[in-house]
């Protein structure tokens, strides 16, 4: 009989190597799946993991990795602060959408002016939009004790409908003869969030993600607010005695996540996505939740997790397009990676015992 026995302290060894073990297991299981689909498993795995970084067209794909990882990391860092304090903001997708809407609207109000002031104004508007959208669950929780998981999640659907109405209505490009979608912000010099260095994939959103990671790391380890966040998550009662005001913590954590998600939306709509369209929301807000946990709610871990997620997307698309793998197989492969990461994680806190044990 196999039993799990709780370790007295989490294993540092397993905490360190579990992501590697998970990746290896994913490759084995995924390779079997690809083989079952009649594809060469080694070629498939090489296309997903190797080609985007070292392959023939790596000069293009490396930049794409950063474009994909940037918003994931930016949003996940904000979410991780709240998750550490036990505040569950599931609605980053909505904050991301509203940030993009507010930022785009603020910029388009000045169309077709050409001044460099417009882009910074849009960033502020985007951050503010995300912040205000996050304040709805925050204030409802503080004032009426509502559940922020439900409220923030429900607000995603509201945001999606706002997005649809903006794309076909109030932000629609007046020169599009009735077709949905706003003006292309990445083609208007005043609002374009282009690559800062050509073909590196580094646009202002990626820079913002790096700044956010450093800021979050410093705050968590060096600042009183970071201490309060960690304390509230690990020992809520002790936190009260230490002078943590729960309401203020809720507002700060949700607000911070909202600001970062809103900015991510703005950088996306002015850069890679280019316009407000019905399909602008691409799930970054939800994927970022996975990235936050994959990165152990640690800002530096989130960077690694964000890059890994980006690799499975970019490499997965690469395999789907070039090897004719069905999209569902790629999704299943990504699911395997997350499954193995979480499953192997058990070994950090538990050890496996074989044979008949004495009931503990």
């Amino acid at each position, binding site marked *: 009989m196999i039993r799990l026995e709780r370790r007295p302290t989490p294993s540092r060894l397993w905490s360190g190597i579990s992501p590697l073990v998970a990746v290896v297991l994913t490759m084995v299981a995924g390779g079997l799946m690809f083989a079952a689909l009649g594809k060469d498993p080694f070629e498939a795995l090489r296309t997903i993991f190797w080609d985007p970084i070292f392959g023939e067209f790596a000069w293009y794909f490396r930049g794409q990795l950063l474009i994909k990882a940037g918003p994931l990391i930016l949003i996940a860092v904000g979410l991780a602060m709240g998750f550490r304090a036990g505040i569950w903001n599931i609605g980053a997708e909505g904050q991301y959408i509203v940030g993009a809407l507010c930022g785009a609207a603020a910029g388009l109000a000045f169309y077709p002016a050409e001044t460099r002031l417009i882009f910074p104004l849009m960033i502020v508007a985007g951050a503010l939009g995300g912040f205000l959208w996050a304040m709805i669950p925050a204030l409802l929780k503080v004032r009426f004790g509502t559940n922020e998981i439900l409220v923030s999640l429900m607000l995603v659907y509201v945001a999606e409908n706002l997005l649809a109405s903006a794309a076909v209505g109030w932000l629609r490009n007046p020169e599009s003869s009735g077709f949905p979608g706003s003006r292309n912000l990445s083609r208007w010099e005043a609002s374009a969030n282009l690559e800062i260095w050509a073909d590196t994939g580094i646009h202002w959103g990626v820079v913002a993600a790096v700044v956010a990671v450093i800021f979050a790391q410093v705050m968590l380890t060096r600042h009183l607010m970071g201490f309060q966040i960690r304390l509230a998550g690990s020992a809520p009662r002790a936190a009260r005695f230490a002078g943590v005001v729960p309401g203020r913590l809720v507002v700060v954590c949700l607000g911070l996540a909202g600001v970062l998600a809103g900015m991510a939306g703005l950088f996306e709509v002015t850069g890679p996505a280019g316009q407000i369209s019905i399909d602008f929301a*691409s799930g970054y807000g939800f994927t970022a939740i996975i990235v936050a946990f994959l990165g152990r709610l640690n800002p530096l871990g989130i960077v690694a997790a964000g890059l890994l997620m980006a690799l499975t997307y970019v490499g997965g698309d690469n395999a789907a397009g070039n090897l004719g793998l069905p999209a569902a197989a790629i999704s299943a492969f990504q699911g395997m990676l997350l499954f193995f990461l979480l499953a192997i994680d058990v070994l950090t806190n538990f050890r496996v015992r074989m044979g008949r044990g004495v009931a503990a």
Partner: protein
Amino acid sequence: MKFMQLMAGALSLGLASAAYADGHEPVKVGFIYVGPIGDGGWTYQHDQGRLAVEAEFGDRVETVYQELVPEGADAERAITQMALGGADIIFTTSFGYMDATNAVAAKFPDIKFEHATGYKREHPNVSTYDARFYEGRAVTGTLAGYMTETNKIGYIASFPIPEVIQGINSSFLHARKVNPDVEMVVTWAYTWFDPAKEADAARAMIDQGVDVILQHTDSTAPQAAAQEANANGGRVFTFGQASDMIQFARNDDGTPGPRIASIIDDWSPYYIERVGAVLDGTWEQQASWGGMPEGEVVIGEITEAVPAEAKAAAEEMIAAITAGDYHPFTGPINKQDGTPWLADGEVADDGTLLGMDFYVEGLTGEIPN
């Protein structure tokens, strides 16, 4: 940017000339799909077109496709990746790929791009193509006018864009022509494909007394909702959309099902023509808008649930449109507010149709804005 653009250009040139050197073959044909190829609707039909290209040209072509490509930032990467992979012509099969297609086309001047349902052709290597679905709507509208007993027909609309408004107007005009008492209920689903939403819309309309449902969304959920209503003593008819949806023409026990006809998007003739042009080296930029005469819009089997008189009227309509004798928007037609649009015998011009943002007289409700 400049250096990389040059590199990308040089690279694509290298790949393209490799294909050209040995007499263009095999030409690599790429397809970018918005849905899964098994959606039984829009994407399925495009993939049938891809298979038709393979069947037509055999070893002279190689096709690749990528399904479920979101219409946002990911589209540009997916198209670029296909271009880097050596495609000679790439069909991007959804409206939302418009800007991405043009952006990638700028970087790969030697690769041909074909964007479905869009209007931007910013570079000489970008063509657009669409189909005159409103021609098919004239036929289904006629059938709807005959089949309704409650004189209430329903339309599940996706987004308030010209193509959808053309469909609503065309269906309504032709239903009214054969049944002056008919009213139309329009429900906006704000989606192209969402079985749950489409089923809700269908059920809500059935509850309001609608007994014929037309749809401009791609799932079979409305057909299933109608089948369910009929199993409970209802009498509701539907039309297949984009694909034939023939599985709803008959119930499991062999009795007639809710689907009485369908509008099929057949992209095969267009894809074969355009890939053939690349093979011959005669490909040129164009904006194509084919319909029933070109075989791009096809009416699926009209079932035995339809009375002979109605079926004859529908077939007459098909013959007239296919022969080019009849245009579904032929005056006299007034706009919803009563102002004249087309005089007696006047035919709508393509420019007005492509920007259509108004209902015709008799429709109730407003186009959301």
